[in-house]
């Protein structure tokens, strides 16, 4: 079997599983790209060709998707990727200020990766939690009401590596498991 990307057996078996769920192989494109990206950090041209072979497509069919969707990347983000929502409801509650704070604190411009590869910042479109905006997603955790002074604190905690344990900020996902004790 072609494993020129050196993917883990776990990823390879997940790919097999996901491809089998769809009536047509091409439908699994996004899911396979996600799996490859989760392991390799990004989907470069080589990975693109591998995925095309796996799904019996042309490489251009896969590249079309990767360049279309903002969450699919050809070059990896930083080790910690911070997404701030830009759209109107969050902007009304100060998300532009939040983004600027992060730019200053993390030392990286919006849309870029920091020089040491540690942080990257992305000013995204609506993240669907507008009532508690400004919304910030760090890697896969969604944080709410991150603005003004609280944004500065957030950035400091992130840099110190204490964000997850902090009591000041509980992610949406963690609040589910915390409150819901059976």
């Amino acid at each position, binding site marked *: 079997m072609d494993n020129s990307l050196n993917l883990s057996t776990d990823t390879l078996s997940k790919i097999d599983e996901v491809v089998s769920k769809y009536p047509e192989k091409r439908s699994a494109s996004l899911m396979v790209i996600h799996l490859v990206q989760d392991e390799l950090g990004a989907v470069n*041209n080589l990975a693109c060709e591998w995925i095309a072979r796996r799904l019996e497509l042309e490489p*251009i069919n896969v*590249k*079309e998707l990767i*360049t279309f969707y903002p969450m699919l990347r050809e070059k990896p983000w930083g080790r910690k990727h911070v997404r701030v929502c830009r759209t109107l409801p969050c902007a009304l509650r100060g998300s532009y200020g939040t983004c600027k704070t992060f730019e200053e604190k993390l030392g990286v411009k919006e849309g870029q990766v920091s020089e040491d590869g540690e942080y990257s910042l992305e000013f995204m479109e609506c993240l669907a939690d507008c009532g508690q905006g400004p919304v910030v997603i760090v890697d896969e955790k969604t944080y709410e009401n991150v603005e003004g002074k609280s944004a500065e604190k957030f950035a400091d905690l992130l840099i110190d590596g204490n964000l997850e344990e902090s009591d000041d900020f509980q992610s949406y996902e963690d609040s589910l498991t915390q409150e819901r004790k059976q």
Partner: protein
Amino acid sequence: MIAPEKNELVVISLNGVEVEVPNGINAVEAAALHGKEVPHYCYHPKLSVAGNCRMCLVEMGTPMRDRGTGDPILEEDGTPKIGWVPKPVIGCATNVSPGMHLRTESDLVNECREGIMEFLLVNHPLDCPICDQAGECRLQEFATDYGRGYSRYIERKNVKPKRTRLGPRVTLDDERCILCSRCIRFSQEVAKDDVLGFVDRGSFSTLTCFPGKELANNYSLNTVDICPVGALTSTDFRFKMRVWFLKESKSICPESSAGCNTLVSSREGVIQRITPRRNDLINDTWMTDSGRALYKLVQAEDRIRRPSANGNDIPLDDAISRAFEILKGKKIGVVASCRSTLEEQFLTHRLIELTDAKVFIRGHFGEDDGILLSADRTPNLRGALVSGLSNYYPQDHLNDLNQSISDGEVESLLVIGEDLLESGVSQDNLSKVSVVFMGTHQNSTSSIAEVILPGLTVFEKSGSFINRSFFLQSFDQAIPGPVGLLSDCEIISRLHNLLTDEAAEFFKLNEIWKAMSSSKNSLLAGIEFSELKKGVIQLDGAKWEHLSFIEKEALHHKPLELTTS
């Protein structure tokens, strides 16, 4: 897919006038049938419908029916009440139905066109002075006909890669691209080579190939033809000539028996490019890239321009006399060609019959690509059959000629275009015969021929070919041949007269056709020359059903055994 039935005619109302159109065709075609242009970019009659340029927006309404009973609702004067669709609809995706009402000239439609035109020009670079498409650019044409006439855009335009190499023969300028996706659909559906796609999104969408891959298939230049703007351009034609200087002549591609209809564009006797001509029975609107390159043969290094004898240039009349000297009284062999026109083959056949010459003919075969490059790489093999020149299916060699020379059955040869060494005639045998060579380009045979009579390429003469589906097609001369030459028909005719003491002169095509169509047993019986000039004539190839024609099933072609089985 949108696949209409094109059987009967129905009555629709086009801008208030009742007209008849075939049922199920789309509104753009229906309007065109009655002289009304509906401008469009992404629609192409030979590709699937995309509907993304939105230029063909028209107003459409259908007769209203009562929801409950299904009865037609009528106006006060008894005419059907028309339910107009509140938004304009795209004409290319709207198939006509009986009683449909279309408006292609209303205020709303004009506004739509102005709007779309404006949007297309908003990010379009001001490249007209350096763009090859100028003069045949749909953006230019529709902007003048349907645009607002002035620009309101003061922002910056998008920047994209310019003059990139998309493939060996195609140059891509992404800024000019209007994202109509014709090229992508063509590559997927006709050329069956899915290499093109759009990357990025929105107004930054860019046409490209995957890095490392190229648009290199043998139909890549068709994307240049169908690109409505100057985004895809031919690298060969780039910056060569402004199109309004070009004279266009109708021709047939001589590359293979597919018989693609072409348009030869020339200026002052020099061919600048070849493009396909639409023929719904044969090649749709496509042709091969390799076929287009054939115009380079005209000025090739090894082109024979002057008659000669034993290596010395002599006037044509002298050359013909010398040829006569070589052939008269000897055992003559004629190596005919499947590349000759039907008229030339007819005259050659007459010469052979009346001089009792032996005839030899070979085919040139290659890989059949299933589209428009057939396995038979000569344009008129069937002409040889129909004219009686050959009564067997030509093989890919001339071993029988080699044998005949060995057996002493031929002493002098009239060779039309072929390379005998390549065809299996031994060097030894070649030295035993005297050769009169008639052809356009030098080869090993012309270099040992005693007399060389220059021929004319397809572009320098008129004639007809019969293609793989037994379609008889004529083509016109596009450019004059080298100075001082006669057409192949005239040369053969003169030789014939000398060898047979006849005085018939077959120089003009219509005279030759009078003779060709008078023979009662021929397939060509009764064909009028004027009819031939008007269009394609289907001949019945049933007589040769038993022959194993080498062509496979391809675009608009089904081999005989598949159709009759």
